[in-house]
């Protein structure tokens, strides 16, 4: 019997929590890099098309699935999916909606802990007087957990544990008392910090040019990001990247939206809520995310440097060094704002990842809020420690690839088919529009049924057979010529068989390097076994829950 008595305190709180769930580190770090690598301003066209044809429909689908499940007291995806079809095995697809969150939270909290630590180091002025190389090295040393930049031994581990404890404690305070309150504080602060940094980015101009980087200009960075290269619109790589970005930025395919929406009351709106949270995410990503990292880096280091080095590492390895140009007070403030912004973006997402597991245990096994929250913390810790200690061996990336990338696409594709074709579009449309505080355009009935699943199929197939360097036209020509199809390192097929790593091992001549690569392969296989075991464990719990339900129904 369900012990789940959670609920949202207010509509604004729900929308901010949902927007916080979507807004993550990728809004500030992944989006600008994707735009730079995919045609600058032209990227925004497929990006917005993907948002309209895949993002918005998926938001409506997930919100309505969640509220539909909540009607029968189901707050996690296994039994939300189960309530939508007579095919009893479908609930096992819902396992993705719990598993993904446990696995992603494990490594996501580690990134979150870096931002916590860097807020501390910004205040403590740890980057004062360091060269660009030394600041970059600072991060490398931080990831080597045995090195510590403070008096605290194993600093990275301590911050990770602190971050995980904070997440778990907030979750144990409940939906309205913990998650909603955090979103109400975190989201406005995030936007405020973002506006300050974006203003600095826009107004930097050419004032950061030096003898070493005479061509440095923030405007050149912004121009590169926004100047449309229309020829790139014909490249499938750009469309795939844009669809992928929309997909990941909205946190669809995870099970978190279903879970949050399951606590919305049956007569309440979901259509307008979904729009508001979705567009808020777009505002943070496009209006703020594009005006911070790239302009500031181009403003001090030049556009060529940005083109060569654009990537995730810039946030920790470059930004603290660049902030030092603003004088001691502003540098500390900018550091707090930048890493604080990333922290709020992170924690509002990681809290959402805790709720599906909690909802499931409360619904199916009658667990209390405290027990389900602390058990989430424990599982996340067990899953997360390998990513902390074995970061350099690729365990972190392995989690990110399977749980944070592939799993999302698989689940979203499944749910879009379930919603439109099995549950039925007529019933589905009724769910979306029921209680709606806005007019949902009828056009979306067609989009949800036909376009969104095909869009997702396009993304999924693109991920399986992604050609080398994302060069689709070259790969197709090569296939026609009979010279075969060269798969990219990031394609699912090559990743599945660890082809790149195995080739490196075979080519290695130095015995020490070979041994290190073999060790890496062992750890990666170990990580997969651990993730598979967790998935199997959740499947078993879903089965146990099914048996309990059967017994209860008989008893009733």
């Amino acid at each position: 019997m369900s012990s789940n008595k959670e609920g949202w305190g207010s509509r604004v709180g729900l929308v901010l929590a949902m927007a916080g769930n979507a807004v993550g580190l990728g809004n500030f770090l992944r989006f600008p890099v994707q735009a730079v690598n995919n045609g600058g301003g032209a990227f925004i066209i497929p990006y917005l098309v993907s948002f309209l044809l895949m993002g918005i429909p998926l938001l409506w689908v997930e919100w309505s699935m969640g509220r539909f499940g909540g009607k029968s007291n189901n707050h996690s995806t296994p039994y939300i999916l189960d309530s939508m079809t007579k095919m009893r095995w479908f609930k096992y697809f819902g396992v993705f909606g719990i598993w993904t969150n446990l696995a992603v939270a494990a490594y996501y909290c580690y990134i979150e802990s870096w931002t916590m630590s860097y807020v501390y180091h910004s205040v403590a002025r740890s980057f004062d007087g360091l060269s660009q190389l030394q600041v970059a090295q600072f991060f490398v040393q931080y990831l080597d957990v045995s090195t510590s930049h403070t008096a605290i031994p194993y600093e990275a581990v301590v911050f990770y544990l602190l971050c995980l404890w904070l997440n778990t404690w907030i979750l144990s305070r409940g939906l309205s008392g913990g998650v909603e309150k955090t979103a109400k504080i975190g989201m406005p602060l995030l936007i405020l910090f973002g506006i300050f940094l974006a203003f600095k980015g826009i107004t930097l101009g050419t004032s950061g040019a030096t003898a070493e980087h005479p061509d440095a200009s923030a405007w050149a960075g912004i121009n590169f990001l926004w100047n449309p290269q229309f020829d790139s619109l014909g490249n499938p790589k750009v469309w795939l990247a844009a669809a992928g970005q929309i997909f990941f930025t909205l946190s669809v395919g995870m099970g978190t939206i279903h879970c949050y929406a399951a606590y919305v009351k049956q007569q309440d709106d979901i259509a307008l809520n979904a729009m508001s949270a979705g567009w808020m995410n777009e505002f943070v990503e496009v209006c703020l995310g594009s005006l911070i990292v790239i302009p500031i880096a181009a403003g001090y280091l030049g556009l060529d440097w940005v083109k060569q080095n654009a990537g995730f590492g810039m946030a920790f390895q470059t930004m603290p060094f660049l902030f030092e140009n603003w004088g001691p007070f502003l540098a500390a403030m900018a550091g707090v704002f930048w890493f604080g912004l990333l922290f709020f973006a992170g924690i509002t997402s990681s809290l959402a990842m805790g709720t599906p597991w909690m909802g499931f245990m409360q619904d199916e096994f009658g667990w209390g809020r405290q027990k389900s929250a602390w058990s989430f913390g424990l599982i996340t810790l067990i899953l997360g420690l390998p990513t902390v200690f074995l970061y350099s061996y690729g365990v972190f990336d392995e989690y990110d690839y399977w749980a944070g990338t592939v799993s999302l696409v698989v689940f979203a594709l499944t749910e879009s088919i379930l919603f439109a074709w099995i549950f039925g579009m007529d019933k589905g449309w009724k769910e979306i529009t029921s209680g709606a505080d806005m007019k949902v355009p009828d056009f979306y009935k067609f989009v949800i049924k036909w376009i969104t699943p095909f869009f997702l199929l396009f993304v999924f197939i693109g991920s399986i057979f992604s050609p080398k360097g994302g060069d689709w036209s070259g790969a197709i020509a090569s296939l026609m010529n009979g010279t075969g199809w060269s798969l990219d390192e990031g394609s699912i097929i090559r990743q599945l068989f660890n082809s790149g790593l195995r080739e490196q091992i075979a080519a290695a001549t130095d015995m020490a390097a070979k041994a290190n690569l073999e060790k890496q392969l062992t750890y990666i296989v170990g990580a997969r076994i651990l993730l598979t075991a967790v998935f199997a464990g959740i499947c078993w719990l879903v089965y146990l829950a099914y048996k309990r339900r059967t017994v209860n129904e008989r008893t009733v």
Partner: protein
Amino acid sequence: MTTLAVVMMITTMGIITAFTGYFFWKVLRTPHKSESE
């Protein structure tokens, strides 16, 4: 910055900000039916 880049940036940001503001304003102005009961 080129004129095209400026137009592209301002148009996109304008559209996104307008939609964000409009939908959030609607959320603020319309309480959930269960809240107003």
